[in-house]
């Protein structure tokens, strides 16, 4: 008789998890919109999530993830209430020239959003099916109340705000984004995750983006959740021939967050670039599992990931690149770097590269350390005080990733956000 392997320490057993999921389905069933996601799709997703169960101790992909909160966090969405005026005040200002969609607790707020003719398209994005590595995406398939489902035919600048709130009842919210780009379409997407469902809640977001042949996407994904937020994210990107996708990932909030990202370069000549920035303090845990799959010839990927951990925070990033047998002529570069602001902080970076063909050019590297003492002394020797020197060097460390953002207005928005996140006036002065 085989015994089930133990789940991640401190979390619940698979049996308890299964029961909680079934209970959540019973609670949420009256609220789920079958038009947006048919019952068959939801049911199939739930069954897959149940079969996959919780990540196991031996599962390398989940080694550093803090998901103990799943033992007690709410899994079901609840009926929506009117949005409080105080909540509206926390919405970020509109971006000039962008179409805006606002979701509060996973529900589209018509009154706060611009009319969007491309919404509610029936066809599902053409992304590969989820795997066990994306198991929490199945929960989003099962429980999502609403979805930003958009077909981009030509040019579009889109500002999507997902705001979570903590009310008197614990809840799980399931922000969901489905985008399909027609050939040659051009999308600029700013996707922001803000707020929190509180210590007993869960934010489980999912995004699927299909970029048609020759299309271009410049995507800024900004996670600025509150300090007590508990967050899971599953993102899948699929690139057709000659599509270009630039993703900037800002991870600046949440008590615990886990991002599972997969970019499938199935079209020849497609390009995927990632600039990732993660800043954490307190006892927060930011975990990332990234997979870039080169499936076709002459595909290109480039990843720059920079992390700063303060206090007793923990940031982890496993970035795997696979170059398949048909991906001759592929090019791939990875640069993962971590900065430990003090003893007690922890950063784990694991670049991985697996190549199954010839004529590939690939590089990968990861370093983690403290501030460079020679640089620090140089600044002190010019009369800058210790805090200013530290702030400048942290800023410079992150700027390495930010400098590659194509659109000037996006780069500026990111720089200003980081300046605030670093909590020192130095970076703001640098921007002047």
């Amino acid at each position, binding site marked *: 008789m085989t015994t089930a392997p133990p789940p991640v320490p401190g979390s619940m057993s698979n049996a308890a998890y299964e029961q909680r999921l079934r209970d959540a389905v019973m609670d949420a069933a009256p609220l789920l919109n079958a038009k947006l996601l048919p019952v068959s799709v939801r049911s199939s997703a739930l069954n897959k999530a149940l079969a996959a169960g919780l990540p196991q101790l031996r599962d390398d992909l989940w080694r550093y993830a803090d998901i103990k909160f799943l033992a007690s966090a709410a899994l079901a969405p609840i009926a929506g209430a009117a949005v409080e005026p105080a909540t509206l005040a926390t919405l970020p200002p509109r971006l000039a020239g962008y179409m805006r969609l606002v979701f509060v607790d996973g529900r589209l707020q018509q009154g706060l959003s611009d009319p969007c003719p491309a919404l509610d398209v029936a066809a599902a994005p053409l992304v590969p099916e989820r795997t066990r590595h994306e198991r929490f995406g199945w929960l989003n398939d099962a429980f999502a109340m609403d979805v930003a489902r958009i077909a981009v035919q030509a040019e579009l600048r889109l500002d999507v705000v997902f705001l979570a709130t903590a009310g008197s009842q614990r809840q799980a919210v399931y922000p969901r984004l489905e985008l399909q780009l027609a050939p040659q379409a051009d999308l600029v997407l700013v996707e922001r995750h803000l707020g929190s469902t509180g210590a007993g809640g869960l934010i489980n977001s999912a995004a699927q983006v299909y970029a048609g042949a020759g299309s271009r996407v410049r995507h800024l994904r900004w996670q600025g959740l509150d300090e007590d937020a508990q967050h899971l994210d599953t993102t899948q990107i699929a690139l057709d021939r000659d599509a270009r996708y630039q993703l900037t990932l800002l991870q600046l909030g949440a008590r615990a967050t886990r991002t599972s990202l997969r970019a499938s370069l199935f079209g020849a000549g497609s390009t995927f670039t990632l600039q990732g920035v993660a800043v954490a303090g307190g006892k927060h845990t930011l975990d990332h599992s990234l997979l870039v799959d080169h499936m076709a010839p002459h595909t290109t990927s480039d990843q720059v990931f920079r992390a700063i951990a303060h206090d007793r925070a923990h940031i982890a990033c496993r970035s795997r690149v696979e170059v398949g047998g048909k991906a001759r002529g592929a090019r791939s570069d990875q640069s993962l770097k971590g900065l430990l602001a003090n003893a007690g902080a922890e950063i784990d970076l694991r670049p991985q590269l697996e190549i199954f063909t010839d004529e590939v050019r690939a590089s990968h590297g990861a370093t983690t350390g403290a501030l460079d003492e020679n640089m620090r*002394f*140089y600044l002190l*020797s*010019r*009369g800058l005080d210790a805090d200013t020197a530290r702030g*400048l*060097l942290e800023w410079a460390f992150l700027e390495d990733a930010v400098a590659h953002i194509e659109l000037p207005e996006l780069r500026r928005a990111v720089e200003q956000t980081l300046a605030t996140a670093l909590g020192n006036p130095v970076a703001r002065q640098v921007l002047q």
Partner: protein
Amino acid sequence: MLSIRDLHAKIADREVLRGINLELPAGEVHAIMGPNGSGKSSLSHVLAGKPGYTVTAGGVSYQERNLLELAPEERSRAGLFLGFQYPVEIPGVNNAYLLRAALNAARRQRGEQEVDAFDFLALVKERMALMKMDEAFLSRGVNEGFSGGEKKRNEILQMLVLQPTLAILDETDSGLDIDALKVVANGINTLRAPGRSILLVTHYQRLLDHVTPDRVHVLARGRIVKSGGPELARELEQRGYDWLLDEAA
């Protein structure tokens, strides 16, 4: 200006300064010469407060203050400037920002108003012209992508902007071609003034052809083994260092 008395210092467990005695009056330029490993750069670093060095005996007085009690940034704001032998690159921190931040730190220390952006730019451009530097360097990261010679020019540019009262230039001439050497020497000479002192650390005579020192000190094995006028440098150029080491032994 600067008084060094029986200064001993070590790095890790290795003693690098073994009793330095030096008086540098205001308004004078002194050269520190010596073979590799003699302690020249160590002396510069100890005076600037670089971490990793431990002073085990002796003292240093700067403008009648105990220099060794001051943190590196305090020494800088008090008017001490170190021109690095190997200036680091700091991508992401632009030259203009660092210069302006450093200048304003010094001005605040002196009770002066901070310089505004326009005045700062005018000042820097004037000094860059003197150093024959392209203005485009201002917007680049500190020393980022600079050649060795450009880094040294940038050190002198910073010195010209900050106007220190004590400048310690650690092998500023190394790696410079003839033309760059003249530009750097010219920059140093513009700083000579009655209220300012300069310590030139160098291997070679050639910088001293362009910046005439008032005194020359030869360092060997962590001690000053000989001092003299500018002619001492020329003698070293002809005879090397061995004769001095033999004498000191």
